[in-house]
């Protein structure tokens, strides 16, 4: 299967074209998320809490790995990208439940700086950032699963 993917000179079939579009879309989401949190953190000066850092630890590599995969048209990337997205999703989901008050804090001690349950972790005043994070990781997971399905013989 890899011989077929890496052969860029032949005209891509509809199937491989669609897989590439999934990867490209997943990469765009990761890129937008990465630049978005960097903007909130570095430019707007809203300090990330510990859980945000853990999510960043999985989102940032997704941006790089998916960029390389899109550049090389390598659909096998789902094997590397999917675990990253799943772990990131798990942390984002936990964080969202924490902010929503459905699970209680104390399981993960947060640093002195910013509280992970703080209500002002929002953008545009009302959208909670952890929820956006869950949505971004979810979309990436779905796209990677579709790419996986398409790339399997």
């Amino acid at each position, binding site marked *: 299967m890899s011989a077929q993917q890496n052969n*860029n000179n032949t005209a891509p079939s509809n199937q491989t074209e669609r897989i*590439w579009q999934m990867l*490209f879309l997943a*990469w765009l989401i990761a890129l937008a998320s990465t630049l978005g949190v960097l*903007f909130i953190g570095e*430019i707007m000066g809203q300090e990330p809490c510990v859980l945000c850092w853990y999510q960043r630890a999985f989102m940032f590599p997704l941006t790089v790995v998916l960029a390389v995969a*899109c*550049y090389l048209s390598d659909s096998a990337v789902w094997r590397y990208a999917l675990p990253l997205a799943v772990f990131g999703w798990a942390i984002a989901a936990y964080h969202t439940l924490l902010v929503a008050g459905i699970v209680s804090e104390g399981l993960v001690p947060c640093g002195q700086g910013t509280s992970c349950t703080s209500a002002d972790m929002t953008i545009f005043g009302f959208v909670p950032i952890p929820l956006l994070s869950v949505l971004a990781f979810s979309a990436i997971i779905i796209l990677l699963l579709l790419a996986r399905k398409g790339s399997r013989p």
Partner: protein
Amino acid sequence: MSRRTLVAVTVIAAAIAFIVAATIYKRSAEEQAAAAARSAVLIRPHSPVFGPQDAPVTIVEFFDPACGTCRQFYPIVKQIERENPKAVRVVLRYVTFHQGSDQVVRILEAARLQGKLEPVLEAVLAAQPQWSSHGGGAPNIGNAWRAAASVGLDVTRARRDALTPEITAVLNQDAADVESAGVTQTPTFFVNGRPLPSFGVNQLFALVNEEVAKASGG
């Protein structure tokens, strides 16, 4: 457009979008900060003033006695005062971002009542590493008192004065003005009400020189 070109173009477009958005955001944030400073009261009658009262150029320094950078800036501000003995006065506003800062401000204010603000301020800043919590752990305010006593502060009297409602009122008023002026870091300087364009020693010198030149009919 080939896939590779599309990926490359996306990277470049994202980088440009980020830089443009950052520039726009920073500019509007700076304008907001400047507007906040204009409407805030930077000088209060209770604020300690160094230099001639009628100096045409006023440097307002928001100052935290436990802040290491404020300590490093002290000789720089003194140098500006020395170089412009008639044109520049310095107004000190207290910021208590660090643990124990409020207690040290009380020492300074008690020293002011004894006419010893400047020597005590210098002694307390010199001894800052001994009493502040920079190395971790709790601040040791006893060491700050010892530093103040070493330059002739009447400690018995000062300890009584330090807890008076007048000094508490100074702390409260300065804390409120820190908030309304949008001061989030120390030291923060305003020269005739103008904030530094960006933080730094050279920026402070430049802004002071500009205002001094303006005041002397330049």
